[in-house]
C-alpha cells in the first residue's frame, strides 16, 4: 500500500459518476422527487470530496488507495444463493424474522419474513420506498451527514435497497430481528451500497442483528450506511457482527439518534474483511438518554480495522459508556479514534471511554486516539487506552492455578473478546456471538494470509 498517493482529483470517482448516470436512468427512475434530489446532491458531494488520502487527519492511519484504485463494478442481478448456503451465515439464534440481502438487494426467497407482531415492520427499503415513501421521508438520509464523508455520500447517491425496520410505540419484542447482508463476489470486483433505516418509536423495545458476510471468497466492497432513530423511552440493542470475506473491503457509517430517556446498546464486532473502516456517530439528543457503545475487533493476517466514533452529548443528563477491545495478531492493525463532544448546556454528562488492545505479535499494531471536546462545566468524562502483549503477572497467576502457558494465553486472549460479548443483554444473541468469538480465535483462517 503506497503511503503517498499521487492521483488526479476526480479520476477515481469518474467510474461512480458513470454508474450513477446508469442508475438514475434505470433503477432509480421511479423514486420520489425528494430522494432524487438527495441522491444527486450526494453524488455531487462525493465527486467534490473524492476518495480520502492519508494526508487527511481522519484517514491518517488508513489508506483507502486499494479501494480507489480497484475498478469496482455494479454486481449483476442474480437469482441468489440457496438457502442451504445462507443458513450457516446467519447468527444461530431464534429470530422474529430473517431478512437476507444479496449484493445490497433484498432477497425474498432467502428471507423468512416471520410472523411479526402488530406494529413491527421489517423488510426491504426498496419495497417501502415503492409503497409508502411518506414513512421514510422524515428519516431517510436526514440524519447521517455526508458533507465530510465521501463514502457516506457515495452510499447516499446510490440509495436503493437495504433494510427498513419500524417498531411502533410501546411494542416489546424479545426475539431479535435478524438482517443479513451478503455479498456474492464474482470474477470481477463489485461494490454494493446497502442502506438501512431503523426507527424505534416511543417506549418500544427491540433487538436487531445486522450481519455482513459473503457467499464466497473474492474481492468486493461493501459500502454501507445505517441510520437509527430511537424515540423517547425506547430501547434498542443493535448487534453488528461483520464477517466479510478475507478479500473484502468494508466501509460503513452507523448513525444513531436518541430521544429522551432512550437506551441504545450498540455492539459492532469485526471478524472479517481485509480493510474495515467504520464511522459511528451517536447523538444523545434528549435528556436522560443512555448509550452503550461496545465494540470488538479480532484481526490477524494483514487485516486492518479503523473505528472512528463520535459521541455527541447534545442534551443534559445523558450517559455514554464506550468500550472497544482489539485483539491483534500477525500483522493485524487496529485504529481507534474516539471523539466525545459535550455541547454547551449538556450538564451532568457522564461519559466513559476505554480502548484496550492486546497486541500478540511484533508485527501487529494498534493506534488509539481519544478526543474530548467539552463545552459544559458540570460533567464527568473519563477515558483510558492500553495496548501491549499479554501481561506476565496474569500469565503467572493462571499457571499457578494449573493452566499450561498455551491455555493461559488462550484464556487471556479470549477474555478480551468475552469482556465485550458479555455486555450483550439478549442471552441468546450473546451465546451465539460468544461462540463466534471463540471460533474466530481458534480458527486457522484467522491467521491465514489476507489481501
Amino acid at each position: 500500500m503506497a503511503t503517498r498517493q499521487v492521483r488526479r482529483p476526480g479520476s477515481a470517482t469518474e467510474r461512480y459518476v458513470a454508474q450513477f448516470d446508469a442508475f438514475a436512468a434505470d433503477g432509480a427512475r421511479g423514486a420520489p422527487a425528494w430522494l432524487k434530489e438527495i441522491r444527486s446532491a450526494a453524488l455531487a458531494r462525493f465527486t467534490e470530496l473524492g476518495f480520502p488520502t492519508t494526508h487527511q487527519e481522519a484517514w491518517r492511519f488508513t489508506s483507502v488507495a486499494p479501494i480507489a484504485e480497484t475498478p469496482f463494478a455494479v454486481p449483476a442481478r442474480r437469482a441468489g444463493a440457496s438457502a442451504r448456503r445462507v443458513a450457516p451465515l446467519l447468527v444461530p439464534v431464534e429470530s422474529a424474522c430473517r431478512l437476507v440481502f444479496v449484493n445490497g438487494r433484498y432477497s425474498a426467497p432467502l428471507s423468512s419474513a416471520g410472523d411479526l407482531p402488530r406494529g413491527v415492520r421489517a423488510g426491504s427499503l426498496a419495497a417501502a420506498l415503492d409503497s409508502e415513501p411518506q414513512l421514510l421521508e422524515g428519516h431517510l438520509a436526514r440524519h447521517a451527514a455526508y458533507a465530510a464523508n465521501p463514502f457516506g455520500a457515495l452510499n447516499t447517491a446510490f440509495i436503493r435497497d437495504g433494510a427498513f425496520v419500524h417498531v411502533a410505540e410501546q411494542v416489546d419484542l424479545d426475539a431479535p430481528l435478524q438482517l443479513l447482508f451478503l455479498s456474492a463476489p464474482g470474477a470481477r470486483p463489485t461494490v454494493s451500497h446497502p442502506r438501512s433505516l431503523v426507527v424505534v418509536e416511543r417506549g418500544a423495545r427491540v433487538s436487531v442483528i445486522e450481519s455482513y458476510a459473503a457467499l464466497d471468497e473474492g474481492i468486493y466492497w461493501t459500502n454501507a450506511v445505517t441510520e437509527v432513530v430511537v424515540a423517547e423511552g425506547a430501547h434498542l440493542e443493535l448487534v453488528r457482527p461483520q464477517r466479510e470475506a478475507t478479500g473484502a473491503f468494508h466501509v460503513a457509517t452507523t448513525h444513531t439518534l436518541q430521544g429522551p430517556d432512550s437506551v441504545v446498546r450498540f455492539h459492532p464486532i469485526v471478524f472479517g474483511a481485509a480493510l474495515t473502516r467504520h464511522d459511528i456517530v451517536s447523538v444523545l439528543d434528549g435528556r436522560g438518554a443512555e448509550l452503550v457503545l461496545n465494540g470488538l475487533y479480532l484481526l490477524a493476517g494483514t487485516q486492518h480495522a479503523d473505528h472512528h466514533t463520535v459521541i455527541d452529548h447534545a442534551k443534559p443528563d445523558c450517559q455514554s459508556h464506550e468500550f472497544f477491545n482489539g485483539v491483534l495478531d500477525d500483522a493485524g492493525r487496529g485504529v481507534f479514534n474516539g471523539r466525545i463532544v459535550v455541547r454547551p448546556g449538556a450538564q451532568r454528562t457522564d461519559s466513559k471511554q476505554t480502548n484496550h488492545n492486546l497486541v500478540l505479535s511484533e508485527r501487529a499494531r494498534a493506534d488509539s486516539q481519544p478526543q474530548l471536546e467539552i463545552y459544559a462545566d458540570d460533567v464527568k468524562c473519563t477515558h483510558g487506552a492500553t495496548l501491549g502483549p499479554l501481561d506476565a503477572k496474569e500469565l503467572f497467576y493462571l499457571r499457578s492455578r494449573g493452566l499450561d502457558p498455551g491455555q493461559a494465553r488462550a484464556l487471556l486472549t479470549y477474555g478480551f473478546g468475552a469482556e465485550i460479548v458479555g455486555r450483550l443483554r439478549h442471552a441468546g444473541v450473546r451465546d451465539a456471538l460468544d461462540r463466534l468469538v471463540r471460533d474466530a480465535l481458534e480458527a486457522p483462517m484467522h491467521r491465514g494470509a489476507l489481501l
Partner: protein
Amino acid sequence: MLEIKNLHASVEGKEILRGIDLVVRAGEVHAIMGPNGSGKSTLAQVLAGHPAYAVTAGSVTYLGRDLLEMDPEERSREGLFLAFQYPVAIRGITNAYFLRAALNAARKHRGQPELDPLEFMDLLAEKLRAIDSDDSLMQRPVNDGFSGGEKKRNEIVQMAVLEPRLAILDETDSGLDIDALRTVAGAVDRLRRPDNATVIVTHYQRILNYITPDHVHVLSEGKIVLSGGKELALELESKGYDWVRAEAAV
C-alpha cells in the same frame, strides 16, 4: 511433604533468600512471620515457581520430588497452592469459568474425567457451602473491580475448589477488617485435613488467633532465625521484631 534445604534465591541479581531450611509434614500448620523485606513473600513466590526469581543454591523436595524442576502449572496440578498477596484481575473471564479450567487441568493431570459446566456448578455450590461462602463473585470477571476483601476471599474459594495438599497463604490477612479476617480464617481452618498442610506467611499475629499453628518461624534477612510453637507468635506480638533481631544476634 515439603523439605527446604539451604535455599538461596535472588531477583534481578539481588539475593533475597539466604539459606532457608524448613520441613513441613502432612497435617501441620506452619506460620512464617517476619518484618517487611525479610523475604517472606519471596519464599512463597519461589515455591510457586515465579519465573522472576532465580534459585542460586539449595533444594526443595515436595512429595518426594524436586519441586524446583517443576513448572508452575505442574506444581499446581500436584497440589501446591499459593494464595496471592496481590491477586491478579483477569479481563472478561468469570470466576466460574476460570475455576472450571483450573480444576479440569488438575483432574486431567490426575487421570480423572473433566467436569462439564453443569457438573462443575454442582461441585462449586458444594465447595462454597463448605466454607460458608455465597456465589456472588462467581459470575464476575476474576478479581476485576473486586475490593481487597473480595480478592482475598476469592483466593480462598479457589483453594476450596482445588483442594491443595500444600497451601501457602501469602499475607492473606493483610488489608482485611476483623469480620473479613474471621471469615477467611474460618474457611482456611475448615479446609484443614490430616493429609494436607498449610503455610501461613504473615506480618501480624492476629490471623493466628483463628488458625492455630503447630510451628512458628521467624524470617529475617532471608533466613529463618527462630522457630518455636504457637506461643512464639504471641511473644513476637508483644515484643516486636527488634527483639528477634537482638536474639538472633546473640
